């Protein structure tokens, strides 16, 4: 009895310790980010603490910074194109990998994940050396294709996870009722895949928008993406402008998926009734 009581007390302390470490880890994860957001409203000329007053001047300055705006536009475009193309080819690949049996499928399954496991520096150098070997210039197209390569594993994994839960009888029923291949995919499979499509597109967008190391190698001469622009600004000094820029970026990259997620939730709630969706 007393042994059990001791065991329980031990368990309670262990649980408290777990909770405490968890809290510390969350603080660790968010303290620096919160500091950046707070400092972006600092009136001081310098980018650090202490706070000397509230000011929005750094946001104003940011809006007038032509270089930053250009980098922002570049990154937006690249990320949009990357997200659209990666989602399209990634979802089709995931569909094929789940539905079809063919030789080399296992190998392809592994190969598709590889870009996520090879360090970006190596991917970056590899493509750069290959481009140099065939004497081609670095172009925006190259940068986009590179970003697609980086994002493809994640989109395929997400779509595969969803595909597993979609039973093929639905598609085959449509086919037996006379629908074409394409129609059955468009009318049956794709709607069931919507959550994976949205999640994959958002992730691909973020991966591209956020990519730093590989972009440093691949970007065409004179072109800056948002992260490389921040890196080059940081080389000069930690100006308060960077804090403002960081805050704007956080709003964009956290806001878009959150809004996307909420929209999705609303959407699924709307069509929940009568949806033969399998829980995955």
């Amino acid at each position, binding site marked *: 009895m007393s*042994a*059990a009581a001791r065991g*329980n007390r031990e*368990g309670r302390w*262990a649980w408290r*310790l*777990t*909770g405490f*470490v*968890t809290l510390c*880890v*969350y603080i660790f*994860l968010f303290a*620096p*980010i919160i500091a*950046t957001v707070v*400092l972006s409203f600092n009136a001081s000329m310098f980018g*650090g*603490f*202490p706070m000397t007053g509230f000011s929005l001047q750094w946001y104003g300055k940011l809006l007038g910074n032509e270089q930053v705006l250009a980098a922002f536009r570049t990154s937006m475009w690249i990320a949009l194109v990357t997200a659209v193309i990666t989602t399209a*080819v*990634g979802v*089709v690949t995931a*569909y094929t990998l789940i*539905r*079809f049996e*063919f030789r080399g499928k296992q190998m*392809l399954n592994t*190969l*598709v*994940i*590889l*870009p996520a496991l*090879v*360090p970006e*520096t*190596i*991917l970056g*150098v*590899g493509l750069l*050396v*290959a481009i140099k070997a065939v004497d081609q210039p670095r172009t925006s197209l190259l940068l986009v294709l590179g970003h697609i*390569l980086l994002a*493809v594993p994640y989109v*395929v994994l*997400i779509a595969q*996870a969803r595909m597993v839960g979609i039973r093929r009888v639905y598609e*085959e029923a449509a086919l037996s009722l006379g629908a074409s*291949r394409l129609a059955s995919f468009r009318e049956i499979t794709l709607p069931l895949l919507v959550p994976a499509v949205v999640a994959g597109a958002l992730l691909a967008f*973020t991966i591209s928008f956020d990519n730093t*190391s590989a972009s440093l*190698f691949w970007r065409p001469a004179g072109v800056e993406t948002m992260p490389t622009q*921040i*890196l080059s600004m*940081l080389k000069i000094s930690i100006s308060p402008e960077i804090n403002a820029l*960081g805050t704007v*970026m*956080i709003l964009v*990259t*956290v806001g878009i998926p959150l809004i996307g997620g909420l929209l999705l939730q609303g959407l699924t709630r709307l069509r929940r009734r009568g949806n033969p969706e399998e829980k995955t």
Partner: protein
Amino acid sequence: MTRGWTLYDPRLAWILVAPVLLLLIFFLLLPIAVMAVYTFFTFVTAGVETSALTLANWHEFLTDAYYHGFLIKTLRVGAVTALICGVLGYFPAYFIWATTFKHKWLLLLLLIVPFWISFTIRTFSWIHILGEQGLINVTLLKLGLIDQPMQMLYTEGAVIMGLLHFLLPYMILNVYVSLEGIDRTLIAAARSMGCTSAQAFREVTLPLSLPGLAAGLLLCFVLAAGSYVTPQLLGSGRDALFGNLIYDTIMGQLNWPMGATLSIVLFVVLGCFAALYTRYMGMSQIVKGLGG
């Protein structure tokens, strides 16, 4: 159905995967092959090399202690980061899994939010914590506990801190996915047979969550050892890692053959670790962690 083809015809499968397959071949496999060939090219002067085959690059790498130092430091930093991640990451993963808190999804969402925030911003934000005008120094100075700022930024510790910040969510999610896979009745069974909660954890939960922990360790190690931005922003020149060395060799010295050699070295070394690991853990764990 298409003329003469079966419903799930392999030919159709190849057509459907063609775009991704071509991309993987031309942007992943071929470049790595070309890079491997490049390691035997002769470096003439910055930006110029000839295709005369030579072993000079490999000779230089294998004999120069400068490179060995970089490699060892990189592996050490990677290993230390992965281990700390494992220890610190297990607690939150376990907490999220075991808690009866109704809004568990919120805790998980908070782990995913950092993935959405620009990596560069997450990294440089540490300057506001560790720097001379950072939160810690300014607070301690105000309190009069120190009379001049401590040097915390631009040290190896700061680099590891930045890497931890970037990698902890990966670790936590990996362990969490693995914990989620455990049949909870096993733990109830252990308890009913007289195990204390600590014993049940040691004998049942921990061993069953090891695959996730192991996958997390590998992922953290590989990502830390391949990092470039974190040492660049939070470390001094002395804290540069192998990724920085590769970048400087190619973009700074324009020594492409040597840069290719160093890239292949990093690729092979990390690949060996990953291969050893997957031999014992299986690929599926890592995949689960990435898709989680």
